[in-house]
């Protein structure tokens, strides 16, 4: 019986794609040279504003993103989170083919990444982000309190030290899209604790919690 189980397990492993294997072997947020270098570089928001010009065509002026969820709001996000995500996209740890050419080495230097993150972190977050349908707010609030608040915070402020994103002020449709990708293993660089938190969520539950997050006030202090 034990042998049989082992055979089934190894057959399953062989059947996985190489990228899935590499992903599962990876420790979440393990350091790698480029990410470490960008995190250690001193970001200059003035230079960052200039470097961010090439990002505006998608993320828009002021990094306010788009309510249709196609591009996230980056304004006010923690610099650590922005650098981690940018480095992960660029090194293809996070799957994002649309973004990839705009984040690669021809487009951005390591210093640019630090500068852009410093600029974005200091931008104001106006309370006009896209919100959800508002039909399951009680459910969303309950799910958030159970599974999300310990990392993303009472006000959706996230945690810069631990690389947990601020979710307050983000567009509902983007929050929903990423939650679906995380749950379904398609974002690829997700924290296993995050995947575990939403693993059993239905689409409706993900929508409810994304709707709740899109209405969080955010913390005034960043």
């Amino acid at each position: 019986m034990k042998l049989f189980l082992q055979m089934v397990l190894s057959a399953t492993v062989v059947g996985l794609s190489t990228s899935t294997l590499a992903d599962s072997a990876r420790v979440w947020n393990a350091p790698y040279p480029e990410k470490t270098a960008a995190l250690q570089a001193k970001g200059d928001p003035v230079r960052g504003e200039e470097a961010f010009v090439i990002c505006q065509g998608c993320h828009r002026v002021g990094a306010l993103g788009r309510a249709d969820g196609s591009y996230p709001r980056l304004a006010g996000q923690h610099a650590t989170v922005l650098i981690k995500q940018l480095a992960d996209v660029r090194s293809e740890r996070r799957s994002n083919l649309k973004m990839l050419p705009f984040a690669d080495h021809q487009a951005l230097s390591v210093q640019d990444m630090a500068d852009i993150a410093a600029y974005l972190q200091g931008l104001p977050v106006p309370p006009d982000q896209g919100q959800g349908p508002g039909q399951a707010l009680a459910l969303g609030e309950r799910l958030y309190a159970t599974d999300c608040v310990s990392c993303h915070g009472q006000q959706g402020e996230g945690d810069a030290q631990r690389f947990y994103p601020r979710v307050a002020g983000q567009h509902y449709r983007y929050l929903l899209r990423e939650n679906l990708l995380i749950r379904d293993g398609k974002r690829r660089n997700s924290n296993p604790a995050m995947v575990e938190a939403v693993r059993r969520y239905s689409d409706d539950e993900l929508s409810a919690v994304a709707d709740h997050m899109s209405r969080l006030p955010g913390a005034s202090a960043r």
Partner: protein
Amino acid sequence: MGLLLCGASARADDARKLATTVCAACHGPDGNSADPQYPKLAGMEQEYLLRQLSAFASGKRREEAMTAVLANVDPGLFSGLAAYFGSFAAAPGKVANAQLAAQGKPLYDDGNTDSGVPACAGCHQPDGKGNARFPRLAGQHQAYVLKQLADYKSGRRATDALMTTVGKRLTATEAQALAEYIAGL
């Protein structure tokens, strides 16, 4: 100092002479070319034009005719040439197909979120006037814009990796719509 100033103004004279006798044949005496295959240079930033001249001369930007012409030009005159053509007011372009131009506007302003084409306005400015980093597009000839987008797509023009991505992501219809909209800016 007096000598240096004399030298600089002699250079500007040389550049002007070259511009009016050689470059003007294709680009027009005031940088507003008549033939749509040649770009209008009027109203473009000196820094951008200088960068392109250097790229033609070094072969980094592949355009055989320009490289051949520049082979006989003192690179010390490039800056004066760029300043000369950039100093003129750009003549407005002519929209040939208003319906296409109308389709180009949302693409120019917002991009295509499905295919990941960024808004042109993000870099080239909503009015297409550009700046030192990103060229002016407003009023440019359709044929020239289309040729550049096609060259980015094919890799023939490889001066900007992001524009290569844009060229590859645009459909032929989108490129035409943009060229019409840009002509009317």
